[in-house]
């Protein structure tokens, strides 16, 4: 459950000011001192590695061989090597498929659907489903991976169910690994979207929907023209957050398939890990990390812009 969540409100107006206009500079600085432990940690362990990342990505740094003895600048070689390598483009492609299926389509739509249905259901059903979905989310990453490996295995529960209704089964982890890990990620992550949408829907005044119903708007039209426009902000925020989370999923895929068979489920984080640690190419690995950070940064910037325009 590696969630990084941020509130939907832009910088919450603290609306509190102790004035302090007339205080000398030194006193003002002393007031900000409590920030120093947090800033120190973030400089050393977050900013430091990111800067190091930018430096190492342009070198031939390695744990063994020539790159270990004398590190030298190689310019854009790492990036050239990456974009001309089949394995890298394969992992970019798989990352996009994984993100699209499991986050943007799966978790997002299912989370919204669950939140909508829960408003119209009876309490025991609501509690049962809520507990099951949140249970899947709270489970540690590797435990979830093992449960789902069992579920998707040739002898697993999914095939038993498929055979029962006369459909052919297969060993999903070998036949369609990227689909299996995407479904696994939907199972594990839907709770987050469900919670965000439940909170957003609970803020819609009941009268608005009731009056739309009185005016004769049917279920789907009500959803499209009344409900969804009112939670646009929650939709955008949720999409952004789960996209960023899904981009960096490692443990779930690694424990289920190791990126295999072959490289059939090797998303960017797994490719990066393999290059940097199995093949000791630290420079090349950081170049891939930089590509990942760039993708993440682009999403974060769009997200921040969205928040700022909302706050206006």
């Amino acid at each position, binding site marked *: *459950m*590696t969630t990084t*969540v*941020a509130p*939907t*409100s832009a910088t*919450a107006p*603290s609306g*509190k000011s*102790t004035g302090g206009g007339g205080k000398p500079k030194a006193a003002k600085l002393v*007031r900000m001192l*409590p*920030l120093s*432990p*947090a800033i120190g*940690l*973030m400089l050393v*362990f*977050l900013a*430091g*590695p*990111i800067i190091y*990342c930018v430096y*190492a990505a342009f070198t031939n740094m390695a744990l063994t061989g020539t790159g270990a003895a004398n590190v030298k600048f190689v310019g854009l070689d790492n990036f050239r090597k990456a974009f001309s390598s089949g394995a890298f483009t394969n992992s970019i492609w798989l990352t996009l498929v994984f993100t699209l299926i499991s986050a943007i389509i799966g978790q997002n739509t*299912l989370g919204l659907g669950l939140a909508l*249905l829960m408003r*119209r*259901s009876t309490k025991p*059903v609501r509690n049962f*489903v*809520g507990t*099951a979905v*949140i*249970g*899947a989310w*709270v489970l*540690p990453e*590797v435990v979830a991976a*093992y449960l789902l490996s*069992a579920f998707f295995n040739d*002898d697993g*529960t999914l095939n038993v169910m498929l055979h029962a209704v006369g459909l052919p089964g297969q060993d999903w982890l070998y036949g369609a690994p990227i689909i299996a890990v995407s479904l696994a990620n939907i199972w594990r992550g839907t709770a987050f979207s469900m919670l965000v949408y*439940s*909170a957003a829907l609970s803020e819609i005044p009941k009268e608005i929907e009731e009056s739309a119903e009185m005016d004769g708007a049917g*279920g789907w039209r009500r959803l499209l023209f009344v409900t969804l426009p009112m939670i646009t902000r929650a939709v955008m925020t949720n999409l952004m957050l789960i996209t*960023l989370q899904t981009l960096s999923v490692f*443990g779930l895929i*690694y*424990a289920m398939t190791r990126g295999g068979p072959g490289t059939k489920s090797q998303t960017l*984080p797994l490719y*990066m890990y393999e290059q*940097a*640690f199995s093949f000791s190419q*630290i420079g090349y*690995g*950081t170049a891939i*990390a*930089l590509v990942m*950070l760039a993708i993440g940064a682009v999403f*974060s910037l769009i997200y921040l812009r969205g928040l700022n325009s909302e706050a206006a």
Partner: protein
Amino acid sequence: MIARDRMSKLASNLVLLAIGVLFVLPLLWVLFASINRTAGLRVEFPTHPTLGNFKAVLNTDTTYRPVLNGIVLCGGAALLTMVCAVLAAYPLSRFRTRFNRPFLLTVLFCTGLPITAVMVPVYGLFVQLNLVDTLGGTIMFMATSALPFAIWLTKTFMDGVPLSLEEAAWVDGAGNMRALWAIVLPLMWPGIAVVLIFTFIGMWGNFFVPFMLLLSPERLPASVSIFTFFGQYGEPNYGQLAAYSLIYTTPVLLLYLLLSRKLGGAFALGGAIKG
């Protein structure tokens, strides 16, 4: 009208139940397999339930040490996160400066960083600083990666504490830190508990960070040892794997129940997330 309402309620319930069953099935497997001596991969109720699997994994190497390591690692990191987050949130929440807004935006930006991408350079940094395979270094990194979100959430809770009480304390000559300790914290301890538990749950399940930064088997937390025990030698003993998974998962389930109590029902967390 009434009939239609009843129909739509029934339909909603049926669809929800179907989805719920799909979510429960993999969870059922772990429950049944843990008490089944000959557990396989499918959900089946054991003919002769037994606690043998639990007995088999309840020993120092398999369970006690990894769980203890996890408690030291995640507990230490969550506490460090909390202390830094409370200290940082105080000036951000109480004083208006030109520095606040850019700092908060940076924090928000950091909550979106894919931590996975930073792990290769972090490993490089740990090699330089001789921190690889140390609990202290791992605790500091875990704490830092949880810090941006914790600062944000703590500040949100702190903004809810009225300033008037503190102003009285300042007039009496109390310093900022004294006011924070004696007045603000006692008023926001439910919020503190929420941030602390949320941080801990996230760390407890995290696999990649300890997997990269710790090497010795005797230092590994449960999240990694489960992988090294059961993931490496072909066909694992599914019954024991299931039993161990249950033992390892129990702490976060209990904490989550505590959390949803504190927030008044499971769905209030969504409100906390929205800030």
